């Protein structure tokens, strides 16, 4: 192996602590559902859901960078894996969610009805 390996057990447990804490926060928020977050919308989704997604991406970062040891890889490997994923997933989400919302509007406002 090209790079030397120092034991990083301390970091592993620290990351485990972060991931657990974030999951606990998610569950608490999911059970309480504070109205201030749950009832306020921002760009088609309520604030609570935005927080959930932000926390999920935060967890994903730690899993990939610490557990999968992405932070120890060369920057070319990092870029080759991370950038296509980020770009393609955002692109796909943008297209499909916009389209889903459009169809919802069509059912709701135009002559085609989904109302039995």
């Amino acid at each position, binding site marked *: *192996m090209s790079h030397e390996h120092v034991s990083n057990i301390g970091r592993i447990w620290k990351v485990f602590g972060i991931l657990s804490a974030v999951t606990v926060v998610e569950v608490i928020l999911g059970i309480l559902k504070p109205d201030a977050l749950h009832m306020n919308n921002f760009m088609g989704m309520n604030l609570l859901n935005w927080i959930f997604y932000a926390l999920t991406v935060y967890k994903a970062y730690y899993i990939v960078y610490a557990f999968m*040891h992405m932070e120890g890889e060369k920057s070319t490997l990092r870029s080759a894996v991370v950038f296509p994923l980020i770009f393609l997933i955002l692109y796909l989400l943008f297209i499909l969610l916009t389209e889903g919302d459009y169809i919802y509007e069509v059912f709701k406002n135009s002559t085609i009805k989904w109302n039995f």
Partner: protein
Amino acid sequence: MEATVTTANSEGKTWGGGNEPMGASYGKLMMWFFIVSDALTFSGFLAAYGFSRFKFIETWPLADEVFTHFPFMHGVSAPMYYVALMTFILIFSSVTMVLAVDAGHQMKKNKVVLYMFLTIIGGLIFVGSQAWEWKNFIKGEYGAVETKGGSLLQFVDKDGKRVALADFAAFLPEEREQLTRNKAKWFMDEPALPSYSVAEVQAGFKAHPEILIRTEVITKEKKKTILSRAESEARLSQAQYVVEGANLIRNEYGSKLFADFFFFITGFHGFHVFSGVIINIIIFFNVLIGTYEKRRSYEMVEKVGLYWHFVDLVWVFVFTVFYLV
């Protein structure tokens, strides 16, 4: 194996082979690229789920009303605790996996064996938990009826608490024969009959004036709409099917697509966990018989570790999309 693990000083002859431009061996690099493609597959599924949910945003089931079970706690509504537990189990098995990789770097065979064993146990517990979750989902709890138009009606009492079909449905002395292949014309049959017929549910509803109908439509308060008694009677007269539990055609929770996506995405993820456990077991035995000790490299443990962490990564997203949002 030597050829894939060692890095020769071959910076000069870029195209001559044995070169590692990304600083990772061939096997590890291919594992990364497999993970990229698999991640895109899962993104496709989850984005399709998002599409359908945005399309039926006003009638989608509310997750914390669907997943409310916890082992050994019957009749207690415990949304989310069980999946949170499953999440912890999977994260923890990720931790033991990364500890195994770490021990492998230091060539400590016994520690690798211990941590890989714990990882396998964690994976098995997770798959078992998912099976239990599926069992509850398929069995259902309250039951519902579907109208001719395909919308789903659930039953609540005056306080808005859900009422199960068994609590109010009448018993009518009627014959209900299941249509089987040998009695039908032209390859027709039908799935197992539900416990009650539509007429029995309607008669029971008439006899219990305190019961109201809840539709799929979500109100401004983010609750399901509860109809008045008169409206309820009108809607129930259009009932066509009694729905108990969930299958790929209809489910008692609401939108048909909801159950389809639940089965497909958690099933595909569960299949990944299952194959991950199998691969881990193979590598575990290789560690046990000293294959990697002879190679002087535990890189195989690292590669299956990548796959295992990826499974955990996907679960983090499935957890958010199905249970939280």
